[in-house]
């Protein structure tokens, strides 16, 4: 019992620390890359290459005056950012980063909620993916309540847009993952990753392509990617905070650390999206292993991070490239294009699986 508890606490502290550091440096990376895309330098003054900029930003956020406007609905105004950040942080608990790790005779899987049975393989709850979807759908309240409780027209418009957009795209998002679930036959993220460890066979010919679900589910992957961009309110779907029309959307009235909490929630959500895409479509931590034992045990985590980094870079790249949708275009695209396409993908996938079986 005691080693189990210690392992759990160590894992939680480590993962949350890495996650928040990742979020901080994600903002640095975004400013740097967008800067280079627009032919600027980005942050350069604090530390070498502006590497200490996130630290300076953090100190600034904490030291700024925490204003609460007069006519807000106070309880919900304070609850909203806390809810948004909490819900985005919870999802990381079910995400597996790798196989077992053994330290001083205690074996534990690289996942906060994972359990190692006394003999053999690590297991996790069979609803990992559903927990992430559920927590994401609760996270909508943070955005919705923020706008409503601010008692300001721009904030309310922003949060109405955000709730409508997130409910609409949640459908396409959930349905796009069903194809992978049919192929893997499980909701457990660990099981889904394990089923991608081999290579694809065409009849009896080894194609040497990794058994990633991106290859049979390429349509589902792009539906997921677009729906996830809308879910995280990022360009080209960032209408809830469209600064040209709504000042700053749902967080117009928020200042200091409360604003920072919305900001962090958005970036944590982006990392979660990257994690799910990696786990479901790109084989999670699987990748070529070589070298001495120590390197071999570290490589899975390296591959996992590289794949997530790819998605983070994609987010920034698209932000630097695409303009914003119009609101009616956004809704029409979600309901008339992504949703039917996702349903068609499910039907075709299940037909093929049924014929093969």
């Amino acid at each position: 019992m005691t080693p189990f508890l210690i392992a759990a606490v160590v894992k939680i502290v480590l993962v949350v620390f890495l996650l928040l550091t990742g979020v901080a440096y994600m903002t640095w990376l975004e400013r740097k890359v967008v800067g280079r895309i627009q032919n600027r330098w980005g942050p350069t003054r604090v530390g070498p290459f502006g590497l200490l900029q996130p630290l300076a930003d953090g100190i600034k956020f904490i030291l700024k005056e925490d204003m609460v406007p007069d006519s807000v609905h106070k309880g919900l105004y304070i609850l909203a950012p806390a809810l948004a950040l909490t819900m985005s942080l919870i999802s990381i608990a079910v995400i597996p980063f790798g196989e077992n790790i053994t330290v001083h005779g205690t074996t534990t899987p690289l996942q906060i909620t994972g359990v190692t049975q006394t003999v053999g393989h690590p297991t996790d709850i069979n609803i990992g993916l559903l927990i992430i979807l559920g927590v994401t759908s609760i996270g909508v309240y943070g955005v919705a309540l923020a706008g409503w409780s601010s008692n300001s027209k721009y904030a309310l418009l922003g949060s109405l847009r955000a709730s409508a957009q997130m409910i609409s795209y949640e459908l396409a998002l959930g349905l796009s993952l069903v194809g992978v679930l049919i192929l893997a036959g499980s909701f457990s993220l660990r099981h889904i990753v394990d089923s991608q460890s081999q290579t694809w066979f065409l009849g009896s010919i080894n194609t040497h392509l990794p058994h990633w679900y991106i290859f049979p589910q390429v349509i589902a992957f792009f539906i997921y990617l677009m729906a996830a961009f809308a879910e995280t309110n990022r360009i080209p779907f960032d209408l809830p905070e469209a600064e040209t029309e709504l000042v700053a959307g749902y967080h117009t009235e928020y200042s200091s650390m409360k604003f920072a909490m919305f900001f962090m929630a958005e970036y944590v959500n982006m990392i979660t999206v990257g994690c799910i895409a990696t786990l479901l479509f790109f084989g999670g931590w699987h990748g070529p292993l070589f070298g001495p034992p120590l390197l071999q045990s570290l490589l899975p985590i390296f591959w996992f991070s590289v794949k997530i980094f790819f998605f983070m870079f994609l987010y920034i790249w698209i932000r630097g490239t695409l303009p914003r949708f119009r609101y009616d275009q956004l809704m029409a695209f979600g309901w008339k294009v992504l949703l039917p396409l996702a349903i068609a993908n499910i039907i075709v996938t299940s037909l093929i699986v049924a014929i093969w079986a």
Partner: protein
Amino acid sequence: MVHQVLFIIFALICVAGAVNLLLQRHPINSALSLVVVMGALALIYLLLGAEFVAAVQIIVYAGAIMVLFVFVIMLLNAGAEERSRGSHVALWVGGPGVAGLAGMIIYLMFRKDTHFNPVTVGNMVSPAQDNTHGIANLLFTRFLLPFEITSVLILIAIMGAVVLARRER
């Protein structure tokens, strides 16, 4: 032991949320109390070992349906409600009605020989397979007809909403 303690905690949260739902005067507070009730119920399902039902409870009820409730309240910008003095009908019909319903539920729970008590329903999902597979098997074999009828019912509701919302030209 741990289960019992957790059950009591979540049951208390659930009942407190339900009472708060009735006592609050602002619709948005009531709606959020209902979200708390749904969440606590999901955790109780989880304690019972029904992890799939728990997740679906969160996604469908706490996530989708209640967000729509909150959305509508926000859109209509509904304000705090007046508190009425209470009606005699509610007092004379409601009290015995609640007692009768509670009695019926308790009776059904404790009836041993029945077809439909919690134990027999729980046993339909065999412990050998996991929860999700078990529910899927039951839904698409034994309970296929009710399942399909429910989906037709939802379809009718959707068509009704479209008819009502369509603008006359």
